[in-house]
């Protein structure tokens, strides 16, 4: 079966003053549809950089990232923006919810950015919140929610546009163990039940074990 994601010879270099730092060093990787892949590695190994490149949030110094047959390097800013909006979902370590929006409004955000009308999106957003166990908190603002609840709102938001790929950056990094376990289970269910691919960056071996396989990065290379 063809891979959903194909990474070939991916290199990313940063300049820090006079020095050049190679965060990723010729990474090759295939990830199939419906797979839950965890990316682990010590600090500075390049795991977050890999996630950024998979999500089209940054551009590689060399190599390619192809998702659903689309080479991200060939897309301009507009193309990448649209791709992220319609085909990807993000779950951030720090939740990144808009503080002035309620829970359901935050969930509706991806489709709102796609031109949807807010009042038409409420039903779908509320349904997703109910799915993640927050049906009783739809009108609450982020300031009124716990860390675990915030991350569940973020997961609902990531699912709103029915993406083919979810990218999660340390989704349990700011949560207690119980909340973290709930979030991981939720992510697991989203991928298994809906044939959705999930790539998760984590430094927690226990969290990584929830996935189908683990890719270890050391010094920018796949170990």
């Amino acid at each position, binding site marked *: 079966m063809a891979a959903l994601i194909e990474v070939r010879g991916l290199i990313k270099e940063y300049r820090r003053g006079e020095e050049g730092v190679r965060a990723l060093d010729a990474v090759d990787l295939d990830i199939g549809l419906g797979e839950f892949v965890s990316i682990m590695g010590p600090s500075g190994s390049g795991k*977050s950089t890999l*996630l*950024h490149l998979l*999500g*089209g*949030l*940054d551009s590689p110094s060399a190599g390619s990232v192809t998702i659903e047959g689309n080479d991200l390097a060939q897309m301009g*800013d*507009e193309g990448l*923006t*649209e*791709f*992220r*909006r*319609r085909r*990807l979902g*993000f779950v*951030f*370590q*720090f*939740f*990144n919810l*808009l503080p*002035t*929006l309620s829970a359901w*409004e935050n969930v509706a*955000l*991806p489709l*709102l*950015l*796609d*031109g*949807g*009308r*807010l*009042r038409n999106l409420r039903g779908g957003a509320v349904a997703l919140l109910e799915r993640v166990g927050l049906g009783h908190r739809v009108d609450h603002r982020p300031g009124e929610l716990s860390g675990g609840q915030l991350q569940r709102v973020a997961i609902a*938001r990531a699912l709103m*546009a029915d993406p083919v790929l979810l990218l999660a*950056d340390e989704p349990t990094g*700011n949560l207690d163990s119980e909340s973290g376990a709930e979030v991981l289970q939720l992510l697991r269910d989203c991928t298994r039940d809906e044939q959705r691919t999930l790539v998760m960056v984590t430094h927690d071996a226990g969290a990584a074990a929830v996935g189908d396989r683990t890719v270890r990065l050391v010094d920018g290379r796949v170990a």
Partner: protein
Amino acid sequence: MGGFAALHLRRFGEHPGRTVMSLAGVAVGSMLVVTMLGLFGSLTGSVRNVADLAGGADLELTGSTDAGLDASLADEVRAFPGVRSVVAVVRAPVAVNGQTVLLVAANGGSEAQLGGIGADCLEGTGPAGGPPPSAPVAIGGRLSRALGARAGSTVTVFAGGRRTPASVIGVLSCGAATQLNDGMFVATTLPIADALTGRGGRVDSLFVTADPATGPAALEAGLRGSVGGQAVVASPELRVELAEKGLRPLQQGLLTAISLAFVVAGFLVYNTMSMVALERRRELATLRALGGRRGPLLRSFLGEAAILGLVGSALGAVIGVVTARASVGKVPTIVLDYLGVRPTFILPPLAVPTGMAVATLATLGAAFFPARAAVRVAPVEAMRPDGVLETAGGEGRTRPAVVAIGAAIFLGGNLVTVLGHGDVVMVGFGAITLGAVIATAGITGRLAQGVGRLAARFGPTGRLAAAGIERSPRRIWSTTLAVTIAVGVVVALGGIVRNQEQSFGSDFASLADTDLWVQTSPPTTVPVQPLLPLEWAAEIAALPGVRGVSRNQAAYMTLGDEQLLMEGLEPGTNVPFFRLPGDTGVRAAAGDGMIASKAWADRHGLGVGDTVTLTTPTGPHDERLSALVDLPVIVQGQLGIDYRRFTEWFGRAALTGIEVRLQPGADPVVVRQAIRNIVSDAPIPVNVFTGAEVFDGSLQSLRQSLAIFNAMVWVVVAATGLAILNTMAISVVERRRELGILRAVGTSSRTIRRMVIAEAASITAVGAILGAGLGLIQHRVAIQAMAGLVGFTVDYGFVVFPLLTAGLAAVVMTMTGSLGPAIRAGRVNVVEAIGYE
């Protein structure tokens, strides 16, 4: 993105203090625009109300001065081919029970409706039965209230040295009547008006309607050829055009001050939007990561700015209407004299929309660059941990091209100001400030370094402040520039005003050489109306202690499409216009030649020896220019001849003032009282001033004219204080995490407060130094350009006082802007500040 844009509106409630400050900045700009438009609209609109007495006439024939036209001219004009109708109108200032009002009268008939004021406006009638009223008049509503007079009352009209009782037959108080001379008028028929004023049948205007077959243009040309030597032939609009011309220098000055206020308000909005962009950086990155496009995000951001602009400008417009109404009552007397009307508050329909539009557009302009920078945030920043807010990349780099462009505009502005004339000078003056703003925009990093180095001199707290300063070059630049502009305005305007006062003082010092002045007007204006009886001159000359008198006449006259001050004086006068080197002035006062203001002569390419033709009621008169005088004048120019010819040519056998010379050793107090006894039974106040009082009054007149600029300067300073307050509040928020860490490691609240004050003081100090330099340059070039701008030369002199005032302003701005944020910074909650989301 409509729903998303609407969600943005919730932002305004997040930081109410910041929102209020931004609204205040925008409101100031809108208020100033509406005030200016309301003030000038009221002045020109009041003149137009008088012009509209024509009721739609095509042409107006007037006398060149208030001496008017011979009534027989009306018959001559009626008989002219192409004339359909002629309405003769009297429109003269008279005194009624001590109040100076406008007397209006027209020949009777349906065509004589005075600009919509007709019999249906009349309230009340005279008592039933009894003898017919002598000298029946109708009065305006405001006059009725001022005198307590109504139908059946008797009032005394004083005009042309005559005192005549008149019977009030009613009060005219309909819409148009309330705006005619602000309701301070007396209306009657032409014969009654003539009897009240003793003008021997003279009228002020002939309103002519053209035959459609001829047309106004052809008729105008024809009449000008026929009667142009005796009357000014022009559209009724000329009166309004002359008023607008006369107000132009004042308007230009106000526009300059308003522009500066907008620049400061613009920096306020720029700072606020920059802070908003910085605060929402991660949020914007998230939206970009989720697939939000730059265009819609930018439009949402600008939508916020537009709402800020609309609400702030609406608030400012409301305040502006109030201040415009108040300022109408504060117009200097000398301005009202040449306008010839008592102004009514008239708000032009476009005043409020214009004020709101300008302020809103300025807000959008100021918000555009921070908004554009904000939506260019890299989506990957959404992945970064919360913490110290990062500045945009490359914010502090030096941009030589920008510096070069700014420097070119700065230098070009200086050249244009010094070498240009008229409106171009104002553009050049503005370019000096604009060039400074652009040039410094290219060195924001270096400027921030400079401010930081100064802050570091305040010791450890200053070094802490310096770290924050150097990290935010754009914020530091915009705030420093706001201070620069405010201080520059204080220094420049202070220097210009001082130099004007000094030049004015030396130019008009001769006024103090006359022992006593007798006139109806205050010493702050040139006396033109009401006229004094001729016999008073002889009575005063016969008083013990009086060595001699000089009779004076002055009137505003129309020559071509300009309004000039015409004076007729006698030998022995100390009026500055005639106090010339050699005997030129003495000879002109004795009937040899005519003196003209240099600016007017230069504008018309005239020099000494050239001949000027004056249009007078007694026909055209040619006179040779014997001298050109470089003195400030309130209208477009000034002419002076001897008193005898003035009286003969303009048919104005009266006085506007009497100069009294005392015998050596005479007691001026005694003589002054004796003169007061002579004039005491006049129905209007007649003043007897000493020479020193008249001289002081002339200086006061200058200060009155400049008072509004002084007020504007302090508005700009206040807005700058607000800008500093805003930027320091931003600084505290920006460095919240850093402040928390400092407190966590043991820095005292007091040190934190001092750090904030050190930052504010450094910004203000650098801004004040740059502003002093800018102000000194602007002062110098403005004085150089004065002749080309206002028509007279002012001598430049370095003045220290404005620099001291600017220093005081800088201290006020620092304290205003830093105390609140300093206190807030000292109270930062350590746990919250260093905690994660």
